[in-house]
């Protein structure tokens, strides 16, 4: 379960940032190390909300710094949904 969410999140991040999945280490800082900007973060957030039918508040955007942190956030939000 956790693994598939991780793969799906990586897929979304890679699509928005326009990089190959292999170029995005799971713990790399997306803005500082991978070259994303905060608008891309917003696009990632919108894609996640649509895919997982979750609502992510604006403050969470700052915490979405790495793929792994996004995965944790998605898992927590999904749990809350149930």
């Amino acid at each position: 379960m956790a693994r598939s969410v991780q793969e799906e999140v990586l897929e979304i991040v890679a699509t928005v940032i326009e990089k190959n999945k292999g170029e995005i280490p799971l713990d790399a800082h997306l803005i500082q190390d991978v070259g994303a900007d905060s608008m891309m973060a917003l696009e990632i957030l919108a894609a996640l909300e649509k895919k997982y039918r979750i609502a992510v508040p604006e403050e969470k955007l700052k915490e979405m710094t790495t793929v792994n942190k996004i995965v944790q956030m998605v898992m927590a939000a999904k749990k809350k949904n149930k």
Partner: protein
Amino acid sequence: MPKERKETMKNSFGSEDIKKLIPQRFPFLMIDRVMEASPEKVVAIKNVTASEQFFKGHFPGQPIMPGVLIIEAMAQTGIILYKQIFPNDKVLFLVSVKSRFSKPVIPGDQMVITVEPIKMMSKMGIFKAVVMIEEHKVAEAEIAFGSQDAKSA
């Protein structure tokens, strides 16, 4: 807020009130009237007339409204949507557009532009826009915008 907006059921207003919300002016004001405005949805119309400047060159003898200007109309409607949620925020910049056009827009058409938020935040957002002419969808887009400081943050 202008008084007349309270008098109509769905919060519709004309170009003078539109100008209070968006900075674009002739010949770049791409919406004529807002039919409905709320934080969940804005519907605007643009009457496309034969006297539009751009028809002179796009194209001589075969007037077709440029797709980029249809996107401009969607973006301007999007600013109105944003201002329903954050009335005091400054002008924002276009960040990304994913669009699809299905039918040319020609003189005499009335574009009905409907925008709905996908995600709206202070200083940035993404919204969905659909343009209809009568019952036909002519264009749709997903548009992201942000302020300059949001982009560099």
